[in-house]
C-alpha cells in the first residue's frame, strides 16, 4: 500500500516539475501537462497517428524477436565453452559501447531505405546485451549442475533444455528487459534519421514544423508504453521461483 502511495507521489512530482518547467520556459519550449494530454488524446483519434504507430510496431516486433531469439542462441553457444566465453566477452562489450548510430549508413547501404533497415537498426541494438547476459549466465552455472546432468546420463540436448536454460532464465530475462528497451531505441533513432514513416519520423518532422505539442505527445505515448512493458517484464521476472 505504501509503495502504491509512493508511486503516485512520484507521478505527481513529475507532473508538478513539468508544470514548473513550463511556467519557466514558456510556450515555445514546452507544452503544459494538460495541453500535452489533450493533444495526445486528439492524436489517438487520428488515423495518421495510428498509421505511424503501426509502422513502428511492426519494425519493433520483428526486431525484438531477432534480438531475443538470436541473442539467447548466440549467448548459449558462446557460453557453453569456457574459452569462447572469455574470448568473446571483451569483444561484445566493445560492440555494446560503440555508438551504433555510426553504422547506420552501412545498414542503409546494405538494406536500402525501408522496413528491413529499421528492423536491422533495432536488432543491432538489442542483440548484444541479450547475448552478453545469456553468455555470462551460462558461464556462471554451478559446476555441480553439469556434473549432476552427467551423472544422470542426460544427453547434451536434454542437459541444455532441462537444466541449462531454466538455470539461466532469471539472467536471460534481465538481459531481455534491456534488449527490449534498446531495440525500441534503435528503431526510433532509425526512424528519426532515415524514414518517412513511424513515430520517430513523426517526432522529427514535428520538430521541423516547430510543433512542440506533437513532439511531447508522442514522447509521452512512447514513455508510457516503455514503462508499462518494462513493468510487465519485471513482474515476469519476479514470478519465476528462484
Amino acid at each position, binding site marked *: 500500500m505504501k509503495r502504491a502511495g509512493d508511486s503516485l507521489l512520484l507521478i505527481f512530482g513529475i507532473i508538478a516539475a513539468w508544470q514548473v518547467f513550463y511556467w519557466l520556459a514558456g510556450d515555445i519550449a514546452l507544452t503544459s501537462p494538460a495541453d500535452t494530454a489533450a493533444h495526445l488524446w486528439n492524436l489517438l483519434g487520428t488515423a495518421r497517428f495510428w498509421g505511424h504507430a503501426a509502422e513502428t510496431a511492426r519494425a519493433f516486433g520483428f526486431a525484438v524477436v531477432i534480438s531475443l531469439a538470436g541473442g539467447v542462441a548466440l549467448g548459449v553457444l558462446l557460453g557453453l565453452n569456457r574459452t569462447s566465453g572469455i574470448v568473446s566477452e571483451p569483444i561484445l562489450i566493445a560492440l555494446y559501447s560503440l555508438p551504433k548510430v555510426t553504422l547506420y549508413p552501412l545498414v542503409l547501404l546494405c538494406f536500402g531505405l525501408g522496413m528491413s533497415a529499421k528492423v536491422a537498426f533495432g536488432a543491432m541494438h538489442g542483440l548484444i546485451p541479450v547475448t552478453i547476459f545469456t553468455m555470462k549466465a551460462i558461464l556462471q552455472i*554451478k*559446476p*555441480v*549442475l553439469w*556434473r*549432476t546432468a*552427467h*551423472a*544422470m*546420463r*542426460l544427453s547434451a540436448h*536434454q542437459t541444455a533444455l*532441462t*537444466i541449462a536454460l*531454466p*538455470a539461466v*532464465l532469471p539472467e536471460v530475462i534481465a538481459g531481455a528487459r534491456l534488449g527490449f528497451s534498446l531495440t525500441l531505441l534503435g528503431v526510433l533513432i532509425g526512424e528519426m534519421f532515415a524514414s518517412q514513416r513511424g513515430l520517430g519520423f513523426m517526432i522529427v518532422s514535428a520538430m521541423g514544423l516547430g510543433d512542440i505539442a506533437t513532439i511531447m505527445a508522442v514522447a509521452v505515448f512512447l514513455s508510457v508504453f516503455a514503462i508499462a512493458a518494462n513493468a510487465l517484464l519485471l513482474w515476469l521476472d519476479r514470478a*519465476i*521461483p*528462484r
Partner: protein
Amino acid sequence: MKAPDGADVHARLTGVTRVFDLASGAKLHALGPIDLDIKRGEFFGVVGPSGCGKSTLLDILAGLSPPTAGSVLFEGKPIEGVPDGVGVVFQEDASFSWLNVYDNVAFGLRRAGMDAAETARRVEYAIGFMGLRDFAMAYPAQLSGGMRQRVCIARTLVLQPRLILLDEPFGALDQQTRLLMGEELLRLWRETGATVMLITHALDEAAMLSDRVGVMSARPGQFIDFIETEWPRERDSRIVSDPRFGVITSRLWDKLRVESLKTMGGAAPGAKS
C-alpha cells in the same frame, strides 16, 4: 565376480591411476595406483587428507572421468561413461532452484521417460522416506542446507541405484544435523540393499556408518589401510558409545595423522607451515 574371501564383488578397480595435465605443461599425479574391491551390499567409507584424490576416485568409479591407467569393472563389466545403476550425491548443493521439491525428485524419472503412475509412486515413496512430505511443494531456496541435501539424496534414490556414491554430502552441515543425516543414510542403505561408498573427512562419521573403512595416503592417494568395523547391520548413531568405536577411530587417526602432516608440509606438531 568373487573376492578372495568369497564375497560377491560389486565394483573392482585394478591399478587405477589418474594423472592431470596442468596448463604449465607439468603433470599432476593425483591418484593411485588403486586396487579396490567393493563388495555388494557393503557400506564402504573412505577417509584421507585434503587433496589426496578422494573426489577423483569417486569420479572414476562413477564413470564421470576416465582413469589414466588401470581398469574399472562394475558388476563384472568394464565401464564406459556413467553406467546404469549408479547414483551420485555431490558435496555441493545440486538441487534445481527453479523446481519445487516434488519436481526435483521426479526429474530423473521424467527425463528417462518413465510413465506417470510409476513416477508418482516412486517420488512419493522417496519424499516420504526422506522426511520431505511437508515440503513437497516448497522450493529449495526456502529450505535449509540439510533439507536441500535430502532433496538431492531423494532425487538419487528414486532411480533405484544399486551403487550409491556420496562425496562429503554432509560437509556443509552442523554436527548434530550430520549425525541425524548419517542415521538416515543407514536407513536408506538397509532398506534399499544398495552398495554405498561414502567419502568423508570426518573420522567419526566414517567409523560410525561404515562396515569397512579405507584410509588413503597423501597425494598421490593410495589405500594404506582397510579397517573392518564389524558393526551389526541394524545400527544408528548411538554406536559411538560402543567401546570399539574409540579403538577404531584412534586407529584411523593414527594412520591419517601422518598423512595429513605430509599434506600440510611435514611440520612438527605445533609449528605453522
